């Protein structure tokens, strides 16, 4: 008894043009997806080289989901992406060298070495830094939407969560409040079929998580999370609906976590065939093929984008490595904010 709508794939250039993207935008999306994967692949190398302390997570398999949604956001919209959503940071314009600096605990990472991994955000770009506790930022996104509603601004907040984190009370309290007040917020469930080693049937008992939207009085939609254009179209619909006062939407973006939970995990518990099956639907390869078939991307264009990404990555790693480690004597600083610290783009 599925209740939520199932989104169709995007099949033609015309269709996606209607949804607001021109050819340049499409190339931009492709570039962001490549960059997203590249940043994480390079991060992995840095990790193996011992340059990244702590643990290391990637979002391989979720590049379409994260980039697709972020592309649909307006400039003044805000979002709380999680640990599989590097594509959101990239698409919003965080410079890759700062991400590498973050990974390596350097002073120029967005958290200045205070936090690691993708626990970061650039407030200039409308993003809020995630905490580890999942999905604590979801009800925080609802709070952002509340501010927009109180001030009657036409802005939208986005809250991401994993299908595993859907089990937490935070998900429920946030969605319920958003539904009651019809707040301008869009919820994105990155459903990658695993929560660490836990399969979905041990996480939730309903058919699709998008069905839960009706429990809160709003719309749910399931989208193929390897189809960046379908994700974009659905996100855009939901965001514009929220902007116009139509209330929240829950988008469930289906993909597979294509690696272990983190770098230490070989995902032995995931059936090999599942990986093989989903490898065929690799979001980047899928979009590349689409671009060749539907947007007439040439060899040249493709190479240029690929080479540009490589260049950016190389330069970024170098630049990041030049960033200093934080000065230990500053460890006790900035625990409490002073009034001047309120002078951020968010707070204005």
């Amino acid at each position, binding site marked *: 008894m599925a209740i939520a709508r199932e989104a169709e794939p995007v099949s033609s250039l015309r269709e996606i043009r209607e949804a607001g993207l021109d050819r340049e935008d499409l190339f931009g999306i492709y570039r962001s997806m490549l960059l997203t994967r590249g940043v994480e692949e390079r991060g992995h190398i840095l990790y193996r080289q011992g340059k990244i302390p702590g643990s290391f997570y990637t979002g391989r398999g979720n590049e379409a989901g994260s980039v697709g949604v972020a592309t649909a956001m307006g400039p003044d919209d805000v979002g709380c992406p999680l640990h599989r959503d590097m594509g959101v940071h990239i698409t919003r314009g965080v410079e890759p060298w700062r991400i590498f600096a973050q990974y390596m605990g350097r002073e120029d990472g967005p958290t200045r070495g205070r936090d690691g991994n993708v626990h970061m955000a650039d407030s200039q770009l409308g993003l809020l830094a995630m905490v580890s506790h999942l999905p604590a930022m979801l009800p925080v996104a609802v709070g952002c939407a509340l501010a927009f509603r*109180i*001030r009657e601004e036409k802005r939208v907040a986005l809250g991401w969560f994993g299908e595993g984190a859907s089990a937490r009370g935070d998900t429920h309290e946030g969605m319920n409040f958003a539904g009651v007040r019809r707040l301008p917020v869009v919820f994105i469930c990155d459903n990658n079929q695993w929560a660490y080693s836990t399969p979905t049937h041990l996480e939730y008992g309903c058919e699709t998580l998008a069905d839960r939207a009706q429990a809160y009085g709003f719309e749910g939609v399931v989208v193929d999370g390897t189809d960046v254009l379908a994700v974009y179209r659905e996100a855009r619909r939901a965001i514009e609906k929220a902007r116009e006062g139509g209330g929240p939407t829950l988008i469930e973006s289906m993909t597979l976590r294509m690696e272990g939970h983190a770098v230490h995990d070989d995902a032995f518990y995931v059936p090999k065939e599942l990986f093989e099956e989903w490898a065929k639907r690799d979001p980047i390869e899928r979009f590349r093929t689409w671009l060749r078939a539907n947007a007439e991307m040439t060899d040249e264009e493709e190479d240029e984008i690929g080479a540009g990404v490589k260049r950016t990555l190389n330069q970024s790693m170098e630049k990041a490595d030049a960033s200093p480690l934080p000065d230990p004597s500053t460890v006790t600083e900035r625990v409490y*904010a002073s009034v001047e610290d*309120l002078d951020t783009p968010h707070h204005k």
Partner: protein
Amino acid sequence: MAELTYLQAISDGLRGEMRRDKRVFVIGEDVGVYGGAFKVTLGFQEEFGPWRVLDAPLAETAIVAGCTGAAIMGMRPVAEMQFADFISCGWDHLVTVAAKQFYRAGTPVPIVVRLPSGGGFSGGPFHSQNPESSFAHIPGIKIACPATPEDAKGLLISAIEDPNPVLYFEHKHLYRRIKAEVPEERYATPFGKARVHREGDDITLVTWGAMVYTSEEAAAQLDDDGVSVEILDLRTIVPWDREAVLESAKKTSKVMVLHEDTRTGGFGAEIAATIAEEAFEHLDAPVKRLAAPDTPVPFSPPLEKAFIPQVDDVVAGLRELAEY
């Protein structure tokens, strides 16, 4: 100056800030039409409308997290817990997100959570607690515990101005029992400055909240013994006024720390340990802690009386110190 109850002072302070600053809004269970369980926001929804005086669902995490998000987007939320006890349901968001977001990510979270706290009227284990000590251990959070109507207003204004998460504990037993002159104009009472509630030379009594009045009664009894007790009302426990406490301790050489919350791991331990460490050479007696015993808050009147420190307990403790 008008004579206001403690509750009216809170209400006035909050209303004033809402009039002054459009970014300030209140959210909580039943704060709207009902005016809040204790009627602090009575009439607010009529004046400010339903989007600045929001009846929340019964969902403390949604409230605290919602305030966090709204604050980061530039608002100045003031949340009301129906009883301070229910903040346990918002604990995670306060300590995990609000307290750490600035240190980690440079994003200040200027929220205020109002917490009607304290016992004395058979509220039982879940309507009487003073959970300030648990939070006082968490870096990144500030904590105010006003004892007087004047401070209730001034500290609330400071709390709203503050760019950090502030827990504002308002003692339910003082709401209508304590009345005093409160300046009509706007003023902000600074955090971290203790108030000398009563000057004295022989013993320093450090306390906050409703225990200020218990202390006062006890000190009056000590007068009859010829022992003069100085009462310091901390006003805020994060930050707390170490200088004032240490100075008074050095003057009197004998100190009692008193709080209504339970003893073990209560904030009194922090204060006592600090005095014992930093005024070591000035002390003529061990720093004495007086607090509730380590139990839940019992409901039945004789038990509750045995739980909450009473004037007699304070008198006995002060006498012991005097005789040391």
